[in-house]
């Protein structure tokens, strides 16, 4: 049964608008590229990383859901599946970054490199980089499509064995997911400053991605929660669970960012303190303050309140705030690599996330409308829904 028919007009309207934003954004990007190539590539990378973070966060939640299967997971399962299914398209959208590589990544130019970076060229070189991207995107797409395919099969057949099959598949997938995303975060972001390294970096990016995806899911629950089929099963408990998760990941993000900072600040070694010096002993420190307040203190304080966590209206507003802060965080992670000490802002850094976002949402809704919004034949679904504490 296709439970989406009532929603189809809304989905199609949203898709149209997303496409419009995407087309206008791409046009703006093209114009920007003609004006300033460097700004174009930097902004493109920035916009891409935000939406790719969301995509990977969706994939991470999907794998986690199959492993632990809480009832909140069934509510968002189809959202994260659809998000993860954009991965092959995101691979295509990665092409501009490959084209702009030698403007973005200092290690692609073999002259004038610092001695320490020269020693890394065994890992940081273009052919190996490309091979890695193929592996990442291949693996991620495989997991996303395999899991959603089996879930769709279960929708039709109701075969309970599939649940177990997906669970077994998800265990090793989680291990490889963490490894690949850690390496990808080194490739895409850490190597923008190739002389710097930190073991926590990948963990921080994974947590950031999952947080983005969680906030995005909460916004979707706000949009679709009062419409069939979700309205039939959505309870305060699901919302409470999502709120708790949002709080947990907000805290986790702060924990990881602070731990990394404290360790580097205390050690104060020249080989690893420049990353924070660039971002905190410069004009960029404004961002640091905004992040402490807006990415941690405010959402945390709000999410302490049980009332706010249990109602989708206030919770979704907090989630929107978190999404905005994710953009701010990413800006602070990426741009100081190109602009050491001065704050830098180019209108393209608004156009790029909008353009890629338009395309992404168009793809996402396309995936979402093609399948029932709830995995109704998952045996754990009814099990979880019956559970009322």
């Amino acid at each position: 049964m296709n439970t989406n028919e009532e929603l189809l007009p809304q989905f199609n309207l949203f898709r149209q608008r997303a496409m419009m934003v995407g087309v206008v954004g791409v046009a703006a990007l093209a114009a920007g590229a003609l004006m300033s190539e460097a700004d174009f590539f930097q902004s493109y990378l920035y916009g891409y990383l935000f939406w790719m973070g969301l995509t990977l966060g969706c994939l991470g939640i999907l794998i986690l859901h199959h492993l632990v299967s809480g009832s909140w997971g069934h509510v968002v399962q189809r959202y994260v599946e659809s998000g993860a299914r954009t991965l092959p398209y995101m691979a295509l959208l990665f092409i501009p970054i490959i084209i702009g590589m030698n403007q973005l990544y200092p290690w692609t130019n073999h002259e004038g490199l610092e001695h320490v970076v020269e020693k890394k060229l065994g890992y940081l070189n273009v052919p190996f980089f490309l091979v890695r991207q193929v592996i990442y995107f291949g693996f991620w797409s495989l997991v996303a499509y395999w899991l959603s395919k089996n879930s769709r099969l279960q929708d039709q057949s109701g075969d309970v064995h599939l649940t177990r099959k997906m669970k077994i598949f998800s265990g090793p997938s989680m291990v490889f997911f963490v490894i690949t995303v850690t390496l990808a975060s080194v490739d895409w972001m850490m190597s923008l400053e190739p002389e710097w390294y930190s073991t926590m970096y990948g963990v921080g990016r994974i947590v950031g991605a999952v947080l983005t995806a969680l906030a995005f899911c909460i916004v979707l629950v706000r949009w679709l929660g009062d419409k069939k089929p979700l309205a039939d099963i959505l309870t305060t408990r699901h919302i409470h669970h999502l709120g708790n998760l949002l709080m947990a990941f907000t805290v986790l993000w702060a924990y990881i960012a602070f731990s990394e900072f404290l360790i580097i600040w205390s050690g104060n070694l020249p080989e690893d303190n420049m990353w924070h010096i660039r971002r905190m002993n410069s004009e960029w420190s404004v961002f640091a303050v905004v992040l402490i307040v807006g990415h941690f203190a405010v959402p945390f304080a709000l999410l302490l309140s049980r009332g706010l966590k249990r109602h989708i209206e206030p919770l979704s507003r907090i989630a929107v705030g978190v999404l905005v802060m994710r953009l701010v965080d990413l800006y602070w992670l990426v741009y100081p690599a190109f602009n050491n000490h001065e704050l830098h802002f180019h209108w393209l850094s608004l156009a790029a996330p909008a353009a890629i976002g338009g395309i992404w949402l168009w793809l996402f809704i396309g995936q979402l409308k093609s399948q029932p919004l709830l995995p109704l034949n998952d045996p754990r679904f009814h099990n979880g829904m019956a559970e009322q504490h």
Partner: protein
Amino acid sequence: MAEVLSLLRKPLVLDNKSYADVTHDIAKPLERKTSTAWWAAFIISVGVLLIGIAAVVYQIVTGVGVWGLNNTVGWAFDITNFVFWIGIGHAGTLISAILFLFRQKWRTSVNRSAEAMTIFAVMCAGIFPIIHTGRPWFAFWLVPYPNFRGPLWVNFRSPLEWDMFAISCYFTISLVFWYVGLIPDLATLRDRTTSTIKQKLYGFFSLGWNGSNRTWHRYEKVYLLLAGLATPLVVSVHTIVSWDFATSVIPGWHTTILPPYFVAGAVFSGFAMVLTLMLIVRKVMSLEAYITTHHIENMCKVILATGGIVGLAYATELFVAYYSANGYEQFAFINRALGPYGWTYWMMVGCNILATQFFWFKKLRTNVIWVFIISVIINVGMWFERFVIIMTSLTRDYLPASWASFTPTIIDLATLAGSFGLFFTLFLLFARFLPMVAIGEVKGVLNYGRNGKGGHA
């Protein structure tokens, strides 16, 4: 179909026990005559504890020279043991607090004894930094207190001072959490016992609990709050322990992933210890209906997950050491695997990473003997992990002139053994005088999974 059914909810307590059965089964062992087996175990534990006390007394009287440590390898055995024990404690808080927040009802059968284990493990851990100061009678100098020596305060920039706060705070809150959980059960024992002395004692400590709903309501609230507070606390404790290492500049220690890696490792080792103890307890005290294979399997899954995080952290460290192109960093890791203490590194990898992989298989997760063996192996492996981290970095730091080596003396070993003696002595006393399973909480989940219904609480 059996496999498929296992996806669905299973009863947490087997054999269709009634409320009265729960009280009876858990309180009965406390009222029986002390068994010979208990006495045997107790005498051995106290004997080992006495050896430890003798070693510590000898060390205090003679000086820290009786240990194998030296100027370069200052932390040596003591801090290895300290980190090991603190880690053990973390599973108790995880079970009682984090699983509570996640509404994991299976925790009710194991949380009481896991919390007790936490408290005893933290006590064992606390001994080591205190004796490691060399002059333990001045240990109170670690506390910032007003004094007449002119303005003189502790150094709040030192992670060792953070440790003092973290450990004492952790101990206090674990104790309070445990006691709050015990109050209703003490009332149950009070209402059951026939001995006047026991009735007075249980009556005193149960604070006149009468099971009134108003009381329960506030009690539940405070339990939830404590769980919410203990969760970040337990993470912070091992994070701070990791900062003892990471905020220094020693290669192999100064690495940013250490906090989550230490926390996962702590939970990993703690769950292994919970399993080791629980598998013995359920057999000896006939609690198989309460601590079922379902519980054991769940704990194995937690071990698998945290072990996976630990393994990924090892891999990340290796990769970033390579990627850093930093000679000191790279040497630290080559030395770990191939240096003079290389065998301990492979011991750690073998016990923590390889041994854990067996838990991917349901057959092995539900095989009690097998789980017991692996849990002991993990305990050994996690002790070696701390040994590896401390020893390989301290014996080979920046200056080859200060390279040294460390061999534990008999006093070192006796002190470590003594800490195990203390741990088991306390645990045996606990098993003899207090309910091993949270009676009230188990009653609340008794109907869980029966006739497809949820529990009451």
